[in-house]
């Protein structure tokens, strides 16, 4: 078998379909994973004893449990107790739960790095605690957590490939199916590799542009 001797015309449409699914997975999971992270982090820092412990437990579980196992639990396990999701939905749920846990850790660090005086000043102006968290603490915490959060987004891009293991035909899955059928593993996976490398690099570039744009003078996570 010689290299590059297979049919691009056959391959590319297949990969294109797969790429669409990959993008769908990422673009749906990312915002909800982000919101999930905020909820858990705020619950952990500002919640009462019960909520705080609950959120802490959430983080411990979803960081300690491998993502693939989580996907298996949702897609293969839940049906046995009567809860069934499609493969795509299962993958998205798994990503949101897992991504949210990691995001919440970065956000929590960001929140805790805000000097106490900010909350004090907000309260002294008559803001309620929730107003203060929303208007004063979170905007600053988000900026400080940005490097960590964008890191997790890159991980989401890469780990979207695991959806294939629960039968979602995203780009890795499409590639493997094609490669198996046409016995062209090396070439196909080089292409997939380039796809992911390109995606990750572009995402990284866009993120650093965004970070520069929303940077505030003198405000650098110190």
């Amino acid at each position, binding site marked *: 078998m010689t290299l590059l001797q297979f049919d691009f015309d056959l391959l590319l449409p297949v990969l294109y379909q797969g790429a669409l699914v990959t993008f769908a997975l990422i673009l749906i999971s990312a915002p909800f994973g982000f919101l999930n992270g905020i909820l858990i982090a705020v619950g952990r820092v500002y919640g009462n004893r019960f909520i705080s412990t609950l959120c802490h437990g959430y983080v411990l*579980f979803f960081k300690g*449990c491998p993502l*693939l196992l989580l996907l298996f639990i949702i897609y293969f396990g839940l049906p046995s107790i009567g809860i069934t999701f499609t493969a795509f939905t299962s993958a998205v749920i798994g990503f949101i739960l897992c991504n949210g846990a990691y995001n919440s850790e970065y956000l929590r660090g960001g929140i805790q790095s805000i000097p106490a005086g900010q909350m004090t000043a907000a309260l002294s102006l008559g803001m309620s605690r929730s107003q203060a968290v929303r208007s004063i603490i979170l905007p600053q915490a988000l900026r400080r957590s940005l490097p960590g959060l964008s890191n997790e987004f890159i991980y989401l891009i890469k780990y979207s490939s695991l959806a294939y293991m629960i039968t979602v035909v995203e780009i*890795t899955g499409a590639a493997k199916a094609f490669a198996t059928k046409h016995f062209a*593993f*090396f070439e196909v996976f*080089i292409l997939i590799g380039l796809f992911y490398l390109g995606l990750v690099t572009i995402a990284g570039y866009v993120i650093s542009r965004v970070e520069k744009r929303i940077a505030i003078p003198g405000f650098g996570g110190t």
Partner: protein
Amino acid sequence: MTILSQAVIDSLPYLLPGIFTTLGLVLTALGIGLIMGVPMALIHVYGSWPLQYIIKTYVWIFRGLPILVLLFLFYFGIFPLLGLHISAFWIAAIVLGFRTAAYQSEIFRGAILSIQDGQMLAARSLGMSRSQAIIHVILPQALRNALPGWTNEYPILLTDSSVCYAIGVAELLTRGNQIVARIHEPMTIFVLIAAIFIILNYSGQWVFARIERRYRIPGYGEGDTR
């Protein structure tokens, strides 16, 4: 449906070899990563420009690609192409090792850079050569500073080891799946396996934290060194 049926309990011993395989993967990969990561970091900081470029590309590739794609690429593509027929376990260990080496080299590189300037000046001013300075002054400190970031690789490798299921390595998740295929109680088995992973994860981190505390340089990283 009872939570722990007899069938489940009977199949538990079957998981044990899976646990050993998982830990084997993780520790082997950590070792490979360490052996490769330190020299790579040194080259990245002190090497000539073309060598630095090679390391940078390596890191870019092995950090940018999903672990699943790397496993497929090596297991179905590269190794057969090279005509090497080694077991899935070793391929997985090598792939995981190469990948953590990329991350580890960045960790070590950061640690070296953080002390590089001042320490190198001091060492050279005492008459040491560059390599003497690196061996006796830079590395001992950099390696200790890198410990917290380095020990962080353990939980990452542990969770990634489960992906090796995709190429048939008989680690914990694979074994669990085989049990589920036989006795059809997926929820119980999977949650049990999750519990095992969580225990392995946090107890391993505890062990590493103790090691880290033992070797930490007191007072380091708290403000400027005078």
